[in-house]
């Protein structure tokens, strides 16, 4: 089944809650409303003839100009060898969406990753913690406006320019050598 046919089935079932299919550049996608994403996903997984049983990827995009964060769902059917991409547009200030962990178990870690790096909260997720960064990390680094906070737990995040640093070390060494030479020459002879 082609992506267009899947989209038609989806459109027939959900009407205006599923947007038009995009131009197929790489993967054609359809924008789904935030409220019905779990229903749409359950439908796509269970409907005979569709059976998109595999969540290939779940990720997100940050669009500061549109004030949006998009969550992206890549779905694939092993049985029918067809696929579709869904997108959900969220408010950038407080992005929140229902979890699809109940539909595909693999969404658990994907959603934790999106939460970790974009700060999207997934309502109903059983274990929404950071997955890669430390638990006390500040901020969500894949947001476009992320600023580093200057190191972590006292580890500096500044690396000296090696040429400047080498020159400084050379100067220190030279000063010490001069001092040692002066020390030997001065009092020892006197």
């Amino acid at each position, binding site marked *: 089944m082609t992506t267009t046919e899947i989209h038609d089935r989806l459109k027939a079932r959900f009407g205006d809650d599923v947007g038009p299919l995009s131009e197929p550049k790489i993967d054609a996608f359809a924008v789904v409303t935030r409220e019905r994403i779990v229903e749409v996903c359950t439908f796509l997984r269970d409907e005979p003839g569709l059976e998109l049983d595999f969540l290939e990827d779940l990720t997100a995009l940050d669009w500061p100009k549109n004030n949006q964060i998009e969550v992206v769902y890549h779905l694939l059917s092993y049985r029918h060898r067809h696929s579709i991409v869904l997108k959900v547009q969220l408010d950038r200030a407080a992005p929140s969406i229902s979890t699809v962990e109940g539909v595909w178990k693999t969404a658990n870690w994907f959603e934790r990753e999106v939460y970790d790096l974009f700060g999207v909260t997934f309502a109903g997720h059983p274990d929404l913690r950071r997955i890669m960064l430390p638990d006390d990390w500040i901020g969500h680094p894949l947001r476009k406006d992320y600023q*580093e906070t200057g190191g*972590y*737990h006292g580890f500096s995040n500044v690396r000296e320019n090696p040429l400047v640093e080498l020159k400084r070390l050379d100067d220190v060494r030279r000063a010490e050598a001069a001092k040692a030479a002066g020390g030997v020459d001065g009092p020892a002879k006197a």
Partner: protein
Amino acid sequence: MTARTMDAGTGDVTLFHTSQLDKLINMARENSLWYLLFGLACCGIELMQFGGPRADVMRFGAIPRASPRQADFMIVAGTLTYKMAERAKLLYDQMPEPKYVISMGSCSNCGGLFQLGYSVCKGVDKVIPVDVYVPGCPPRPEALTEGLIRLQELIRSEPWATKRRPAKGSAA
């Protein structure tokens, strides 16, 4: 026979009389350097070759150890993230004195290719003191072997008994 009283601070006196013994001990130390495996990235693969039959560092007495309690020095091989930096410090603190660190490859030297990343520690020397830096991305096992030989030279020429080097910010 009268009981001999020794200087209360026996350290200097003893060391003076046993300076030749020090050399002997240093020789023993430099030829049985056990290293703590700390492979973090692709450098870890070269680190395995370092212990393998071709580079064969066991001819220098270097044996891989999986426990910091048995290790004399630590080879930090690969990209150190901030999250891992705390573990690196913990492992370093668990090693018995005198202890040494070889920083292997660009990433652990200075953050390398990934130093602009938000989660990458800009060099393992931000966390623990480093004795030998081995450049390369990743360094060949031969380069790391040279690093080991440099570390042996360092150990040969130093008084071991007073050597204490805590990690940055640790209590000891």
